[in-house]
């Protein structure tokens, strides 16, 4: 009985294929002509949490709100700061006041005009103590904010503050929908209204978010008509969906980028891009720990670690050797700092100078106690765990015993890092293109929960960081930061391991993608699909 029914059932299903996508038939090599239409399907491991960007910190939410809202300024493809909602801006002679001249004729998605009042509201709500936001820090430095007229806004500071300008890249919220209301209760969290190139359409909880092109966008209508973000919580499934053409774009792991996508059918359908991301991975020492107080010991460990081996072995070559806390695609990067090429002899010589001698079994000793420490790594991060293993082997060759302890993220941070209860740790930083090393390297930032947890203290560095913060002169800042990087390289509080590449696959029907210092998405509104290569018709994505 049962088998008969199930057979009929299966037949039914296969006889009526519900949907079929056009694929594999067209050639995508023809660049074609820009045309309006089609949809791009993205995927995210986690679901967006809140579409009011002030109130969320997750990347899925910010990917969406980045297309819906604008700031006053933004980065261009070469990471220069250019106007977004601001047409231009003046910085007063003393560097204390920034006056923004806003673009005229910009409209919110509901048709109301955008004015300086919206900017004022955004500033006000961000610094309002009742707003639970993580982004109040920069705006709290504003001494006075004023609306000069409908299209002019001025922010005045106590001291000239260089990172201030880019802090105005924060998304501007619609005052007419929020003023006088509790922002945490606002329906905009699920149904945002912005000024950006895409308009919110639909959110199917736990499943997808759909945006549609804003035809009246002030920089021109985006060519791609629809943007969909699917929630696919498992990365293996996401990769299968990519191979199945269920999604159009995905960040790839090194192995996926080099091997698992290296077959003709995939290459026919997808372009792969690689560019330097604003990230670095490091081995950080607790400078309060007896072993690491001596600079020579830190330098010796830097010499004993083979960075190239880590990049080749762990990242399969998809990264660059790191030299300091800035990445090479930043204007402030100084590439001519002291480097530590792999050399066992140099490491041993430095350790000898610091008073360590080989003891029984080849273990280094000083005053009878062996050179031994534990490095902490967070669970689930295979890249960092593999780095730790390679470092462990290299250090054992010079006679240092390094133990590896893998911990869950929350307990690693709360129980060990915050309490300064660690010897060394492997972590990574994501940095902003506009440099401001204050939070990480200034000696005043050593309090609980603050980020200078390695307890780095250097008078000159403190001065350089503060000076660079308080001038708008880029040449001067570049000099200060250049010197700052030299000192960090010399002092070696971290062993800077590598800058990884971001590796992305995008479907070939999307044209006009130009990787630049700013990545891929900076001119997303200029991406297009030629008419003959279009996959989705207009309404395909909306559920009833």
């Amino acid at each position: 009985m049962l088998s008969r029914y199930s057979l009929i059932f299966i037949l039914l299903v296969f006889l009526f294929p519900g949907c079929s996508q056009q694929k594999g038939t067209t050639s995508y090599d023809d660049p074609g002509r820009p045309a309006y239409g089609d949809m791009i399907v993205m995927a995210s491991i986690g679901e967006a949490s809140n579409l009011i960007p002030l109130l969320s910190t997750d990347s899925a939410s910010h990917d969406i709100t980045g297309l819906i809202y604008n700031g006053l300024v933004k980065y261009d493809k070469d990471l220069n700061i250019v106007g977004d909602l601001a047409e231009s801006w003046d910085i007063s002679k003393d560097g204390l006041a920034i006056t923004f001249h806003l673009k005229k004729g910009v409209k919110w998605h509901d048709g109301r005009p955008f004015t300086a009042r919206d900017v004022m509201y955004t500033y006000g709500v961000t610094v309002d103590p009742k707003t639970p936001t993580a982004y109040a820090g920069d705006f709290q430095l504003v001494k006075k904010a004023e609306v000069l007229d409908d299209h002019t806004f001025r922010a005045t500071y106590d001291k000239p503050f260089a990172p201030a300008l880019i802090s105005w890249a924060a998304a501007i919220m619609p005052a007419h929908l929020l003023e006088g209301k509790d922002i945490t209760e606002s329906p905009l969290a699920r149904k945002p209204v912005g000024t950006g190139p895409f308009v919110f359409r639909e959110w199917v909880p736990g499943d997808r978010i759909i945006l549609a092109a804003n035809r009246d966008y002030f920089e021109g209508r985006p060519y791609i008509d629809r943007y969909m973000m699917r929630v696919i919580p498992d990365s293996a499934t996401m990769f299968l969906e990519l191979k199945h053409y269920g999604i159009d774009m995905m960040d790839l792991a090194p192995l996926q980028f080099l091997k698992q996508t290296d077959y003709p059918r995939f290459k026919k359908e997808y372009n792969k891009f690689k560019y330097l991301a604003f990230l670095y991975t490091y081995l950080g020492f607790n400078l309060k720990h007896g072993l690491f107080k001596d600079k020579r010991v830190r330098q010796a460990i830097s010499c004993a670690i083979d960075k190239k081996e880590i990049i080749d072995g762990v990242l399969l070559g998809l990264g660059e050797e790191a030299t300091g806390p800035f990445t090479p695609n930043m204007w402030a990067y100084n590439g001519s700092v002291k480097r530590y090429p792999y050399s066992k002899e140099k490491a041993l010589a430095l350790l000898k100078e610091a008073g360590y001698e080989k003891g029984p079994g080849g273990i280094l000793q000083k005053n009878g106690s062996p050179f031994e420490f534990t490095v902490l790594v967070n669970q689930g991060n295979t890249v960092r765990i593999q780095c730790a293993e390679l470092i462990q082997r290299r250090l054992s060759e010079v006679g240092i015993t390094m133990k590896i302890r893998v911990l869950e993220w929350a307990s690693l941070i709360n129980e060990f890092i915050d309490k300064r209860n660690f010897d060394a740790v492997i972590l990574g930083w994501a940095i902003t293109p506009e440099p401001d090393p204050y939070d990480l390297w200034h000696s005043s930032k050593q309090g609980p929960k603050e980020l200078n947890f390695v307890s780095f203290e250097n008078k000159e560095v403190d001065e350089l960081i503060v000076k660079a913060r308080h001038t708008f002169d880029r040449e001067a800042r570049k000099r200060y930061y250049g010197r700052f990087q030299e000192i960090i390289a010399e002092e070696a509080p971290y062993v800077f391991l590598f800058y990884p590449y971001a590796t992305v696959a995008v479907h070939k029907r999307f044209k006009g993608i130009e990787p630049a210092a700013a990545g891929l998405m900076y001119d997303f509104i200029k991406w297009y699909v030629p008419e003959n290569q279009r996959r989705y018709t207009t309404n395909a994505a909306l559920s009833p």
Partner: protein
Amino acid sequence: MLRYLLKRLLFMVPMLFGITLISFVVIHLVPGEPGALNAEMNPKMTKQVRERMRAFYGLDQPLHVQYWMWLKRVVKLDFGASFTPDKRPVIDKIKERLPITILINLLSMALIFLVGIPIGIYCARYKDSILDKALTSFVFAGYAAPTFWIALLLMMFFGVYLELLPISGIKSFNFSDLSFFDKTIDVTKHLILPVSISAFGGLAGISRYMKNSLLEVLRQEYITTAYAKGLPESMVLKKHALRNALLPVITILGLSVPGLIGGSVIFESIFSIPGMGQLFYMSVMARDYPTIMGILVIGAFLTLLGNLIADVSYALADPRIRIG
């Protein structure tokens, strides 16, 4: 009987209270704090901001005060608002995820019973035959093999190579353009893999249960009597043996009630099904206390209720058991 029921229901109150108290304390013992605060290592997160957010969620209060505030709301059946940045009512979050989880669990449970019971009967009747051994191996393979591995293999085979079934999700992109008939087909296609894989893992339990129970019954003297009075074998099996053997299997149904709202995290993640398992997992990762507690309370209540139903139905079905 009625008195017994009332007594059991009354006993559920302190039990539920105990469960919530223990869970509340345990989840607050876990290091880390709710998602919004969990912007650990974020340079933009100043100390004042952190304190402000803690106060906003009431986390600056001592634990017993927090529990009391929570309890006061829950007795009014208000589970509060989530601590994640979306701050939606917990009950809404659960409501939108419950239907798909229940649907999949019901389907797979039906499939387990429909396939598992016949397998069990066959294995008992033809004990030690080759097919019995083959079926036993088959169900145990399903029990032992990791779900995520089988799921990925089948997704690759049916999705990427044969292109017959969709890989993940529960609806296609063009769902709204489809006719009602096509919509049914579309959802069915999306459900085939998840339902059959989750059923595959559950076959072993029910079929072994069925087999042993039936073997037990077949050894009884009244079965010998039935054979002796010349009844055909199918009659003996159906009328006499099966009825008695099915009794304990039916009580398993009662015990499966709480399982209906619990989804498997691994499984839902792999198929990107927005169900309860994922919700629970995400809430735990984000230390979203109200949501965790909401799901736990509902789960605990259903477990207690399921136990009660199982006990009662046992008594109803088997006159030898007396209660009350």
